[in-house]
């Protein structure tokens, strides 16, 4: 409601302004010639100074922003390749700031300095090959450097050698949640296709495939520190994107194909929580939350829980109504904790068996369903190979 009031005030302000300019126009009735809507020397003067002022605005706003919002941006990368990404990012930022600082000064300062005066004549300066060569070549050289560095980093990140020692984990996306499938002791994921989806086999694993026997499906992602994880991504319905900002990792999940991204986590969740910047960030967030909680309690609602940091996997490709809440917690463990956590997880095969045993023949319809699924499964397996 207050916002509506704000809008009304703004509209009224606009009305007032235009009335003011009207009055201003009326005071100039004497000079009501046809060219009165063209900038006069006085206009050029005023607008020239405003241009100079605008330059100040851009600078002050930028510097204010860097101090005020700079601390909000993603900090220390939690993956091995993240340092390289951030390094390239920082180099690029330095270049951007230099170019931005120089060009904006020139642009707005010239607009101020050369504001029109009645008897002034502009310099006829139509071209200069030397100048143009300079500002074609300099960007070309700088960009060549950036391109080379970028391509080098990109190749390192995206191409995973066949014989590299990795842990293979599948990220499985569906509206609107994530699952993870661990490849088990053989470190090979069993075949899968949406046509195998049935009951407890929610991610469509081919239970007959020998590689599937030790696969484990979970809803919370645990990964060990210091080991490269090769994520294989699938989606069962629409496009999703597995975005893990703290690891500088993202890849789309595409129905009908398997995509991949690999990285090595270098901080356990506990370690990352202890980093000074994160302690500060969490304290800041909790201060904001407790302030909001007081408001909520006053309104008779429940207070917000205090926040502790966890790595997150977010969906970052519009995927439907609840896209805004499609997330999964990622926990980076020490290798020992990771092993312990994984050890007592049931395999998907045993889970499916257990689920089948329970409601045995709860309804007859499921029987016909499964034969149908088998039919399409045969098609799917040939299609996949």
């Amino acid at each position, binding site marked *: *409601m207050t916002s509506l009031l704000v809008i009304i005030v703004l509209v009224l302000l*606009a009305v007032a302004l*235009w009335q003011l300019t009207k009055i201003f126009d009326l005071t100039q009735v004497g000079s009501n010639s*046809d060219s*009165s*809507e*063209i900038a006069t020397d006085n*206009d050029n003067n005023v607008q020239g100074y405003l241009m100079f002022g*605008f330059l100040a605005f*851009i600078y002050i*706003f*930028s510097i204010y*922003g860097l101090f005020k919002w700079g601390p*909000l941006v*993603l900090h220390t990368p939690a993956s091995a390749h993240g340092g*390289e*990404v951030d390094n*390239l*990012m920082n180099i690029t930022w330095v270049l951007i700031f230099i170019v931005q600082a120089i*060009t*904006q000064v020139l*642009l*707005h300062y*010239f607009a101020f300095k*050369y*504001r*029109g005066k009645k008897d002034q*004549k*502009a310099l*006829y300066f*139509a*071209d*200069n090959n030397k100048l*143009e060569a300079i*500002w*074609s070549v300099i960007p*070309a050289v700088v*960009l060549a450097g950036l*391109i080379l560095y*970028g391509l080098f980093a*990109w190749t390192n*990140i995206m191409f995973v050698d066949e014989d590299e020692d990795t842990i293979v984990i599948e990220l499985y996306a569906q*509206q609107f949640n994530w699952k993870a499938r661990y490849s088990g002791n053989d470190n090979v994921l069993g075949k899968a296709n949406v046509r195998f989806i049935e009951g407890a086999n929610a991610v469509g694993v081919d239970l007959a495939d020998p590689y599937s026997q030790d696969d484990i499906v979970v809803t919370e992602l645990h990964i060990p520190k210091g080991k490269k994880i090769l994520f294989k991504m699938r989606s*069962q*319905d*629409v*496009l999703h994107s597995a975005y893990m*900002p703290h690891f500088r990792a993202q890849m789309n999940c*595409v*129905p*009908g194909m398997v*995509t991949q991204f690999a990285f090595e986590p270098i901080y356990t969740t506990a370690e990352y929580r202890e980093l000074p910047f994160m302690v500060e960030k969490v304290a800041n*967030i909790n201060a904001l939350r407790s302030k909001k909680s007081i408001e909520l309690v006053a309104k008779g609602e429940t207070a917000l829980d205090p*926040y502790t940091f966890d790595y997150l996997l977010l969906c970052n490709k*519009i995927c439907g109504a*609840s*896209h*805004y809440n499609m*997330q999964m917690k990622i926990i980076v463990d020490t290798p020992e904790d990771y092993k312990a956590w994984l050890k007592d997880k049931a395999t998907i095969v045993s889970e499916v068996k257990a689920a089948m045993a329970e409601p045995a023949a709860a309804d007859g319809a499921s029987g016909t369903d499964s034969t149908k699924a088998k039919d399409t499964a045969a098609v799917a397996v040939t*299609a996949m190979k």
Partner: protein
Amino acid sequence: MSAEGHDHAIDHEHEHHHKDTFITKYIFSIDHKMIAKQYLITGIIMGIIGVGMSMLFRMQLAWPEESFKIFNILLGDKFAPNGVMTNDIYLALVTIHGTIMVFFVLTAALSGTFSNLLIPLQIGARDMASGFMNMISYWLFFLSSIIMVSSLFVEAGPASAGWTIYPPLSALPQAIPGSGLGMTLWLVSMAIFIASSLMGSLNYVVTVINLRTKGMTMTRLPLTIWAFFVTAIIGIVSFPVLLSAALLLIFDRSFGTSFFLSDIYIAGEVLHYQGGSPVLFEHLFWFLGHPEVYIVLLPALGITSEVIATNSRKPIFGYRAMIMSILAIAFLSTIVWGHHMFISGMNPFLGSVFTFTTLLIAIPSAVKAFNYITTLWKGNLQLNPAMLFSIGLVSTFITGGLTGIILGDSTLDINVHDTYFVVAHFHLVMGISALYGMFAGIYHWFPRMFGRMLNKNLGYVHFWVTAICAYGVFFPMHFIGLAGLPRRYYTNTNFPLFDDLQNVNVLITTFALIGGAFQLVFLYNFFSSIFYGKKAVQNPWKSNTLEWTAPVEHIHGNWPGEIPHVYRWPYDYSNPAHDVDFVPQNVPMKEGEEVLHH
């Protein structure tokens, strides 16, 4: 019609014969000047809808799930029960906002208005090569606008899969309600839109090639015409690809084909689709989608070139370099589309190629920016509202363009892809810049269009508030993007991680609402000046180009009597060989006068 351009006798007969009725003059007009006005006014109405939507979802983002009476009034009980915006309509609003602003305002209205108005007038032609096709082009655009707007009233809601309409989300009504009838209407509207755009573009290209007046060589064309000409070519090359993508999507949706769909399990059942690929759609979409950025931007840059040269009272610096960079941008724009898809699942090797081509495009862009700045140097700047918007364009073009170096680099794109960083980048570099170009064009050519002047003081107010708010909205947005905040989230309250970004969102929305409200100043100025503005003189800005040699009153065929001949390039401002600081293109060279530029 093309022969008529140079035949005096027929022209006269033509004028006398035409007795315009209201319908042939104002509705089914084949006169390019009237069609330009039709495009402009339709575009302004679409712009009001598009910008208005952004105000609504910005309010939702700043004050998530709060109740606003205005939501209930505008969106109704279904989409805003008790004044709280639902997540379905939020996605619909961002989708339609994007579609309307990119296609209907910044493509159709920008090119449609200024290409139609200026191509014949600046090259010295009586009208477009095909006036009839021009008329059809406008009416198809009008029809597609009507369909797009009417999709807002469909029961399940309009298309809401994002303006990029990636399948399977856009193909399956089970996936999102907007992918039912709403999406069908979106596709039909866009198919008609593309037909309209192609007719317009063909007309522009043919007109520029064939109907230039005597002496108007290609290297004497104003840069506006060069920009419109090249834009039209890019449109002809790339829009048909979007049409094919839309058609294939229609097949998938309605006839059960599997071009873009495969292996889908949704709403408890496996669908029959097998073997298609959503990545294919992304390729087809962005094969238009990226050139589209330049279809939006080049006309704005062309307008800016003209306005900056005229108001600096100086030749545009590096005329040939400007043409070369327009051509280079046009060529490169068709081979960079993959930078929207670095993490789409396509082969990473392709990512390397597209990083290379994408960063190359920064070179001609840098040349343009430096040339604008040099044009200002030692000028005699007439800081009219059009000039302010042009300078503003150069500023936002640089600010927005520079962050493109980050997004075009596949390595850096991994982490900022689809975050608010992207939103900030493209709004500055193509949204705000192109809008500034459009405003510059309107302020500059309003006297040419309506024979009256816009109020300059309102123009100043409009510019300064818009300029501050544009930076106020999009500058902080970079930071929340770098904090990892994904775009197209209805609310961020499910992520305590992002709680510290909420204040920034409130600030952004405040700037957006102020900036949006002050566009009313422009609307008032525009519509009241059409009727009550001060009468314009023939050449108010003392400009060199041919459109200002035509009489203020609009007549069929543009010039009474003979079409002016052209003797010089359009940028002889402050030529030392002349006493006045401008020498129109139709002034013959003085005895012994040298050409002072390359």
